[in-house]
């Protein structure tokens, strides 16, 4: 018997929301939340931007006491009527799970003639990846994904959880949020490095759709270097393998690849799929050791803390994350400049092309002045 880990006191992403995003990745048309009206509101709203309908049974005091079975049956039927979906998801919440709601019974009673992914989840898991796992498990049961993909995802999740615990937002009892360094100053520094003819690695290791914005930084650095006429000093790496991951995730990789190509940017090293951000680190590390050991700086976007420090610590590191609680851990790892793209995620939902980042825009502006 082993004692479990530290108690983290800063609020963090919930398993319910993680399940909702996973259902989106599984291309579910409607996600029905069985819970209180305001549960997961902010993310439910954002997901609608991504083309998935999110509805709630809106359990209130009386349903807590008497159960919400009938509401769920009605809502399943209504959702089918309203949205004519091909696949739906039903997601539990703390409220419905505590009172012992049996969502499966409601599904049986509503008896829809389309597949239903039932996710018995609540927000009370320390690792929000539980929500992803449960959703995938149900998708496996509903034969929406196969065993191989499930195992692949399970492995990736375990790695992601591990990375968050070691170097991420779950690494410490409390992490204060931070906006990171001033973008203007860091942009100047990057341009200076390029001007001095320093050799740089531009590594995008993005989590799924966040890549739409992180790719803009790859784009901007390359544009700036091209303007200065020294693009050859840059090597681009990105986790945009178009053959890996759930269909939706591959699609993101395709769009991003297309846009980069359209700008004439070559991705020299594909380091994995867009859901492989927790495992690309080793690959990057090896590449650096074998081929790019003499590079002077690296701009790392997305999940920079997943890249082992060992082979890059001699470079000047410029990291861009979208997690305000990630700044401190990155600094402690030895990243010299850490930037935060505030509110990145909402801007990358529902899009199918690269969107402008603040750091990218800053780089471009300063390059004009120079």
């Amino acid at each position, binding site marked *: *018997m*082993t004692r479990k880990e530290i108690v983290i006191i800063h609020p963090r992403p919930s398993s319910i929301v993680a399940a909702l995003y996973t259902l989106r990745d599984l291309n579910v048309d409607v996600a029905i939340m069985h819970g209180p009206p305001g549960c997961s509101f902010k993310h439910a709203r954002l997901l609608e931007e991504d083309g998935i309908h999110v509805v709630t049974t809106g359990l209130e005091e009386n349903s807590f006491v008497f159960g919400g079975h009938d509401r769920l049956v009605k809502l399943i039927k209504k959702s089918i009527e309203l949205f004519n979906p091909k696949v739906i998801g039903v997601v539990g919440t703390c409220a419905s*799970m*505590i*009172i*012992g709601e049996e969502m499966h*019974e409601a599904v049986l009673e509503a008896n829809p003639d389309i597949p239903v992914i039932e996710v018995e989840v609540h927000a009370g898991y320390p690792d929000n990846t539980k929500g992803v796992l449960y959703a995938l498990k149900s998708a496996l049961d509903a034969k929406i994904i196969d065993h191989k993909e499930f195992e692949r995802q399970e492995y990736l999740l375990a790695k992601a959880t591990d990375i968050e615990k070691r170097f991420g937002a779950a690494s410490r009892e409390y992490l204060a949020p931070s906006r990171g360094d001033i973008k203007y100053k860091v942009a100047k520094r990057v341009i200076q490095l390029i001007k001095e003819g320093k050799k740089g690695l531009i590594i995008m290791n993005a989590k799924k759709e966040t890549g739409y914005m992180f790719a803009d930084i790859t784009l901007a650095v390359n544009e700036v270097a091209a303007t200065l006429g020294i693009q050859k000093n840059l090597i681009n790496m990105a986790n945009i393998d178009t053959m890996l991951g759930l269909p939706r995730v591959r699609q993101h990789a395709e769009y991003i690849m297309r846009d980069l190509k359209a700008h004439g940017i070559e991705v020299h090293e594909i380091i994995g799929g867009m859901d492989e951000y927790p495992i690309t680190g080793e690959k990057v590390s090896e590449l650096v050791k074998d081929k790019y050991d003499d590079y002077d700086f690296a701009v790392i976007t997305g999940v920079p803390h997943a890249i082992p420090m060992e082979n890059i610590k001699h470079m000047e590191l410029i990291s861009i994350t979208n997690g305000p609680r990630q700044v401190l851990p990155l600094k402690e790892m030895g990243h010299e400049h850490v930037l935060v793209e505030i509110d990145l995620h909402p801007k990358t939902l529902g899009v199918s092309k690269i969107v402008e980042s603040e750091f990218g825009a800053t780089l471009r502006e300063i390059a004009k002045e120079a």
Partner: protein
Amino acid sequence: MKNQKIIAIYGKGGIGKSSTASNIAAACAEAGNKVMIIGCDPKSDSSITLLRGVRIPTILDLLREDMDVKEKNVVFEGYAGVKCVETGGPEPGIGCAGRGIIVAIQKLKSISGDLLKEQDLIIYDVPGDIVCGGFVAPVRKGFVNEAYIMTSGEYMPLYAANNICKGLSKIGMPLSGIICNSRNASREEEIVAKFAEEICSQLMTFIPKKSIVQDCEREGYSVMEKAPNSDIAEIYRKLGKAILENEKKNTSNSLSDKRLRELTK
């Protein structure tokens, strides 16, 4: 796949479910069956007489301490090899016992899936008062495949039994039989037999009220272990056998309040 019996016995609080369950478990195990008893009561008193009065750590005891729960920490072998498990629960008046049962049985399923599959008979011992959704989780999660109701011939236990019938049919759980545990009410066997008939079920057996049950219990034993030659031990053996062989299952009817009154008059 073998014909596995996974039963739950419902009935008014204090009617004798736990003591009967542990005696049946012991009787069936003595007869060579693999038997497990899973106590789903925060009181954790289901298996105590199979373990010579010793309390075992419950699943929730360990979960509360954030332990990594393993089979060997929560499944204990009692008299005649009966596997004993207690879900446990929070202190009375604190937290949510219903959620506790859900979490505990899911945990058990995840750590002891193979062991559960091996058994010939699994008895889920639930408390008398099903106060919320959690207490029917073993049934609703599809773990239990047969339900029995225990009652005496007194009015209140029958009233409770009748309500349970309503509840079972509401959740689509068929009823496999009625067990009469006597409290020395007048015309007891006749009344309970009639009740069973009218709700379209069957009376499995009539267990007399015998002080030996309580005497053994006081010393921390089941009747099967301490008084194997008593008449009531023989009744438990027969009941165990009848349950293992029972094929009958009916969606139960329930009686109107008026009819129930008439029946018990």
